């Protein structure tokens, strides 16, 4: 009987190994999406359930991607990353290109790290993390839309319009002076928002926290909204900051967390 069990275990292990090899062979972990239309409506979309997305703008004209299986899940820093098969597909439609990673419920928890390089001047980029994980976008000058359900959002050196909705997680956004007349809206439900403004960025900041503080490295006027029965620490606070040069409205709202404005 024990011999039979060992045989079964060996058979199952062999079948699993074969299936994994076949899947890995069918689904490359790296790829290049060529012929990206850089016209006024060109868009790239990432739609992922669990894991981590890192998007970096470059001067190249191709979109390249690398997908790493993240066996430890998105919340660990020391990840055990393996080049194993991750279910994903690439959609090319009239509105652009999308990498979609939505495993079926039967496939269970599959987290992945997706590293993407896109043309810096691509008009539209949309990143959506539907269940849990972090999003990072760097060096991008087009219009960025981020929806992150559970995880932190980190944005660096952005030069275009930015719209972020983060449900559970913080937002850290660094803006270049090139934003000009493009709107910026950073909304967080449970998490702080940190805005880092490069020198020369103009416009007006409208910052609001329902439970937290509004802080800045420069003097700002913060209005405290009077609320009966609430301690001073948890009163809503609102600040409107003029940056001294013409520019867009930069809206920051968090329901639960601090707002930090850093001006260089």
């Amino acid at each position, binding site marked *: 009987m024990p011999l039979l069990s060992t045989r079964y275990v060996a058979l199952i292990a062999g079948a699993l190994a074969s299936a994994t090899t076949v899947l890995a062979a069918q689904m490359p972990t790296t790829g290049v999406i060529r012929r990206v239309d850089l016209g006024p409506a060109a868009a790239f979309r990432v739609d992922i359930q669990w894991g981590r997305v890192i998007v970096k703008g470059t001067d190249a004209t191709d979109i390249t991607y690398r997908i790493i299986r993240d066996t430890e899940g998105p919340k660990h820093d020391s990840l055990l990353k393996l080049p194993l098969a991750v279910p994903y597909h690439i959609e090319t439609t009239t509105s652009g290109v999308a990498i979609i990673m939505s495993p079926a419920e039967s496939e269970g928890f599959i987290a992945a790290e997706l590293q993407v390089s896109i043309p810096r001047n691509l008009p539209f980029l949309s990143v959506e993390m539907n269940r849990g994980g972090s999003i990072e976008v760097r060096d991008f000058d087009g*219009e960025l839309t981020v929806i992150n359900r559970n995880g932190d959002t980190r944005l660096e050196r952005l030069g275009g*319009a930015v719209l972020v909705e983060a449900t559970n997680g913080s937002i850290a956004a660094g803006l270049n002076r090139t934003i000009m007349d493009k*709107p910026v809206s950073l*909304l967080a439900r449970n998490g702080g928002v940190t805005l880092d403004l490069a020198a020369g960025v103009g416009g007006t900041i409208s910052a609001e926290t329902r*439970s937290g503080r509004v802080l800045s490295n420069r003097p700002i006027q913060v209005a405290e909204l009077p609320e009966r*029965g609430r301690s001073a620490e*948890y009163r*809503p606070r609102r600040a409107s900051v003029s940056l001294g040069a013409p520019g867009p409205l930069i809206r920051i709202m968090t*329901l639960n967390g601090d707002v930090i404005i850093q001006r260089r």
Partner: protein
Amino acid sequence: MSHDIERLHPDDEEVLDAIKRLPEHPVPHGMEARFLERLASQPVRARRTQGRRRIAWAIAATVLLVVMIGRFRGKQEVSSPLLPVGASPASRLASIQALSGSAFGSEVVARLSRTALYDSSANVRLASIEALGKSTTSEALEPLLKQVIQRDASPFVQAQVVSLVVSFPLDSRRRLEAALLQRQDLDPVLRATLRAVSTS
């Protein structure tokens, strides 16, 4: 024959008489009755043609008018500060922010109301409600906010509604606060805020 006579115009009395006399009198000057009949119907045909022309002109004028109105409306839409459907969320947001503080016509109010209810981006819905709050009276805004409270599960939009409601007249404020508190998925921070400032 009699059928054709009935279809003639009453003014053609001479022709009618001529035709009515046909059985009694032989064909004058050797003309055939059929030819005379055709001759007699000519004024009617001419009148019919004239009528058809008038109808054609009326249709053409109507079509032209419709086209002109359409073009005018199209120009209005293009020149409207709100971009047409299909623009990106940031473009829609920028358009709404550009409106902020100005007086709205009924068309802009209608568009902003639709945007506040149906736009796919919470950022844009929030901006619409904020813009309406700055330029519309609380009486005019209350029905819309009721719909927003019923429909919108976004905590950011709900937060904007809470911010607006606080400055409403007491009766209106009570109704909207009650509607907000009825939502099971209302954010705990907003619920605490409403309970702290509640007027009821």
